[in-house]
């Protein structure tokens, strides 16, 4: 009896080890690239640490500083939330619209697909610099055209009221990624459902509302969730735009206050960089990073919960 139990136990241990062996690549990756950095970030958020000297325990001091005294935190958070609300929504709607348009084009669809996709391949730094020059309020062609047709001359990247809309325009220009996934999902909608809806007298809007949308809901949810996470990490475009628009692009020794003009393009990841790598305040930078992490998790959780109705029943 005891020999049988021993054999069974050994077999279970071997099975457990085998399972662990198969899981180990993921476990190692998870530990090294997620669990450890997360643990370290929490640890450093309670430390005074400049990267040069040993960390010293300071309790909640970094948290108090970031939440109540750091002048860049709330503007950065507000801007990031604005971009999440406006940019993600518009990108999703625009991506879906372009996808719908292209799936309906009978001739030259390939050309339009290429034209809409190409901007997505442009390096973000180059694309941003090009947009800042094109939208320069004084010398750019965009305002020259707007002025000629009587639509006024927005300050775009040089005006705190217009800088985030300008970044949104740039994001819409780079819609190629969403266009492709929406196109794929739109082409996957069964044609017979459209035919049945037409036989029932459904118009274009009704077909979209009751046939297209239910079929592509998982893709819409995917676009929104990945869009929210990407926007939470939005860094390159706003900082390049701010530097180019402020004109201090090449001044190594100059003070550059992130978020030009007037903190309007400051995002949370920029605050992490500003604190951690420019002010040498790793502890406070970790606090901002944790707030970003919690927000991203919360957004994702809410979207997944609220969006569960978006998933088809068989998903």
């Amino acid at each position, binding site marked *: 009896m005891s020999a049988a139990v021993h054999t069974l136990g050994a077999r279970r241990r071997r099975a457990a080890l085998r399972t662990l062996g198969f899981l180990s690549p993921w476990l190692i990756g998870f530990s090294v690239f997620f669990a450890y950095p997360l643990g370290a970030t929490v640890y450093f958020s309670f430390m005074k640490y400049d990267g040069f*000297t040993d960390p010293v325990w300071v309790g909640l001091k970094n948290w108090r500083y970031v939440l109540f005294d750091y002048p860049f935190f709330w503007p950065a958070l507000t801007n990031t939330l604005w971009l999440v609300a406006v940019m993600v929504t518009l990108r999703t709607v625009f991506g879906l619209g372009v996808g719908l348009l292209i799936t309906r084009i009978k001739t030259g669809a390939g050309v339009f697909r290429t034209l809409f996709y190409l901007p997505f391949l442009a390096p973000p730094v180059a694309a941003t610099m090009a947009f800042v020059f094109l939208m320069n*309020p*004084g010398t750019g062609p965009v305002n020259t055209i707007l002025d000629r047709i009587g639509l006024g001359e927005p*300050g775009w990247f040089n005006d705190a009221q217009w800088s985030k809309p300008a970044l949104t325009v740039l994001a819409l220009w780079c819609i190629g990624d969403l266009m492709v996934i929406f196109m794929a999902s739109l082409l996957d909608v069964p044609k017979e459902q459209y035919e049945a809806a037409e036989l029932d007298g459904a118009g274009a809007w009704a077909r979209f509302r009751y046939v297209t949308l239910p079929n592509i809901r998982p893709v819409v949810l995917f676009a929104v969730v990945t869009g929210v996470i990407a926007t939470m990490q939005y860094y390159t475009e706003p900082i390049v735009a701010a530097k180019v628009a402020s*004109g201090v692009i090449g001044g*190594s*020794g100059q*003070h550059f206050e992130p978020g030009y003009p*007037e903190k309007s393009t400051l995002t949370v990841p920029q605050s992490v960089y500003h604190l951690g790598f420019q002010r040498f305040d790793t502890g406070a930078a970790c606090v901002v990073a944790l707030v970003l992490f919690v927000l991203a998790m919360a957004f994702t959780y809410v979207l997944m919960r609220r969006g569960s109705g978006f998933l088809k029943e068989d998903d």
Partner: protein
Amino acid sequence: MPATRPRARAVAAVAAAAALSLAAACTGSNDTGAANDDPDAEVTLTFWHGWSAPSEVEAIEANIDAFEKEFPHITVEAVKGVNDDKLNQGLRAGGDNAPDVVSSFTTDNVGRFCSSNVLADLGPFLDESGIDPAKTFPAPMLEYTRYEGKRCALPLLGDAYGLYYNKDAFAEAGIDAPPKTLSEFEEVAKKLTRPDGDGYEQLGFMPNYQGYETTVEHYGGQFGVTYFDDEGDSNAAADPRMTELFEWQKSMVEELGGFEKLRRYRNTFGDEWGPKHPFHTGQVAMQMDGEWRGKMAADAGVDFEIGAAPFPVPDDQADSYGKGYLSGTITGIAATSGKKNAAWELVKYLTTDTDAVVDFANAIHNVPSTLAALESPRLNDDPVYRTFVDIAQHPGSSHAPSSRNGGAFLLTLQDYGLKYESGEEDDLASLLEQADEQIDKDNAQAG
């Protein structure tokens, strides 16, 4: 199930402890010990610097070649175009690939470098070499290369700020000489300004805090603001000079067309380091700038004669005319370097060898950073450039104080200055009190 809970908790605790211990283990501390390497050994030094333009890189390489001839046992591997962000990360990381000698364009970071011991204390090296800093370097440059008594850097060329003006525009407006006081300056700026609808055909001067070099600290050099009291607390509100500065700057903004109009015009400027700089294009007739602007404007092929003079001073300080704001490049030895004696030879050569300093200053059109080099007859005799050499030697020239928090306090003042000039806030006394409060909070966090 209940039986597994304590085990799960134990595993979680062990994992958390492991993560925390890993985090603790990965935090290196810097070796700030004395240099103990053989100064005569064959070594290769890594030198990180920020110069990137071909002519600048050629000039620093020429200096390094001359050094290697004088010290044949030392080879220098120079890494160009290293900005402060990269520099900070390299100094933090340490290790074999980290630099032995570094230079930075940001004098405001010296406080951070010194207080965090990331750069070695140069005091013992200077003593051992018999170099008296006070007899070697201009006083303001000595100030901005140390923090709380610790000298962790030395000046490697300097920058002096003054006034550039378009001589043709002056002649056209019937102005004979550059202004010396701020009231004269205001009159001249208005005379030179030619409005054109919502913009300008020519603006006399862009006083806006976003006008590139028209920053609080550069203006502050003319007013003699103090920034901190004896206790180290921000004293913007208590310093009448700071109030004068803010009020004068705002009055200039209003006299020249108002904040919105100036901002719209500012948006039409090319970038500061490009050929379309507003002074080059004639969009502004006067510009506060450093000694490099003269050469940059000449290289851009401007079609007017360039004049240079010290920036005007407040009327009640007319006798201090000639002074200006000073900053420059600093250099030091990484605390983690295991070749500090060899590194010191390079730092000493670059910063104190008169020929090296003069050649480098002439080549990149910067102001020399030693007293001997400033007096050298070999120095470029271009009168525009010489104006800035004179500013660098003026006893009233100054630099903002070093701070543990780098230049954060200057950015804060600038931020509040922007609120004042734009009219977002009108109560200057309250605004400066808020600035003090913010600066003190930031410094407390950095401390």
